[in-house]
């Protein structure tokens, strides 16, 4: 410690400590507010149950959809040369930095009852996506998709393509190569992408409340319930926060070797 301390400037350590404390103190603050004795009962209340169930269903759907569209998207961005690829990639990654509320407003003007596509869905089929559980899944997929693209594309670019070439030379068909060679090689990236997408979908708030509203049992996911119950029933809000926090910590812990580097 003392030897290392001499080489590392003290102000770097001090700033690092402040940064670390800044991230961890809110978590500590949250944890010390939990009334552990009644936690289980708080999470059994109808509001909490409805929110948790809805969150689970919607986030799993969102992660699945994000994978279904995100993996091909990552593959195209990594492997297909086309004009404007850099722009396309930037656009796909936009939900990472755009405020989710703005994303929700955009979704509304695209898929709302008067939206670009939404008006036809409504006029022709009577389908309304706003204020529906499907709307929640869409909002969550919107924010989760880039996580799949970014991780899977990195995995595709990082893999050694000679294995694929060897398999092709040995007469394997394209689909076989993909299934037996590519997928196993990028499996860690796929797992990480799916897990991050799921965690992000689980925590989605802004796009959901803007596009899908806040209907208990239909569109009120756990983060929305946390926000709205904070004043009336803080114990439930904090209990739900702890559930979300635990899930996120678990996801990061599982991914620590695969994606985030060992520490």
């Amino acid at each position: 410690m003392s030897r290392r301390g001499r080489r590392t400037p003290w102000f770097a350590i001090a700033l690092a400590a402040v940064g670390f404390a800044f991230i961890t103190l809110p978590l500590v603050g949250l944890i010390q507010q939990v009334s552990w004795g009644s936690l289980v009962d708080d999470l059994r209340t109808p509001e909490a149950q409805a929110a948790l169930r809805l969150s689970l269903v919607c986030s799993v759907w969102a992660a699945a959809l994000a994978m279904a569209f995100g993996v091909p998207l990552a593959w195209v961005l990594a492997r297909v040369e086309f004009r404007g690829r850099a722009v396309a990639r930037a656009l796909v990654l936009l939900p990472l930095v755009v405020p989710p509320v703005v994303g929700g407003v955009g979704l509304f003007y695209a898929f709302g009852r008067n939206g670009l596509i939404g008006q036809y869905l409504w006029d022709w089929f009577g389908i309304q996506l706003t204020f529906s559980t499907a709307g929640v899944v869409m909002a969550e997929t919107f924010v989760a998709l880039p996580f799949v693209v970014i991780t899977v594309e990195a995995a595709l670019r990082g893999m050694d393509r000679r294995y694929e070439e060897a398999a092709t030379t040995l007469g394997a068909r394209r689909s076989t190569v993909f299934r037996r060679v590519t997928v196993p090689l990028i499996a860690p990236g796929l797992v990480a992408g799916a897990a991050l997408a799921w965690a992000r979908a689980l925590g989605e708030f802004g796009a959901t409340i803007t596009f899908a509203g806040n209907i208990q049992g239909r569109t009120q996911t756990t983060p929305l319930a946390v926000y709205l119950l904070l004043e009336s029933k803080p114990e439930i809000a904090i209990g739900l926060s702890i559930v979300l926090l635990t899930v996120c910590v678990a996801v990061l812990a599982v991914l620590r070797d695969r994606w985030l580097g060992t520490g």
Partner: protein
Amino acid sequence: MRRTVVTGLAVVFAVFVAGLVATGCGNDSGSTPGSSASTTKASEVTGAITLSAAASLTEAFAEIGEGFQRANPEASATFNFGSSGTLATQIQQGAPADSFASADEANIDKLVTAGLIAGEPTVFARNRLVIVTKPGNPEQVTGLSDLADLGVVSLCGLEVPCGKYADQILTTAAVTIPTDRITRGQDVKTTLGAVSTGDADAAIVYVTDAESAGDSVETVTIPDAQNVIAIYPIAVIAASTNQPTTRAFIDFVTGPKAQATLRSFGFLPPD
């Protein structure tokens, strides 16, 4: 490569700042030049005060704030608008507010009980609730009973005064809207927004918000027998470090000029 990225980011940031300055966000002083100090009453009315005010007061208080500043050039008032419940919680947790204007008595009474209010709250306005629908009223809503059959009805959260009032109104009218068709807004503005810029079919909001929304919604009156009168009290926060200016603002709000402004936005007189 690295250098181009840094340059690029610098350019983006510079354009952002330039845009802010050009659109006047960076210009937070001197926007009312030439206003004479003819009505400056006491030299005590100076400095900045922060007012936490119910979301339904947004438009009216913005105008009243300007009037107050014209009358007291040495003072300035900034507002923190939100649902009265949220604002009360913020003040209980020590948010630096000088005054609190609530859309109900319950939230201000909560602070009085907690000893966080200096003096007595003053009622300065009242408000009524209405139903709003999409322009042209496509679902042909004529009264509260029609709300039970709509796709999605937007109501304020149960902790928000307008949410409590709405529930009271629906109870009085014996109308039950299924929970899975009620979307709850964090405050009256988001509740109205679900209709004006959203796909909700109707909402229950204050008359004043319906008026502020203009043509983006259509108003359906709730009969007096079923309606609720919302009461707006304002008070000085005990922890305020600028109580003279805060008192002056409250006097201004109950004075004829601000009362006329409140009337113009559809508020009812305090009594």
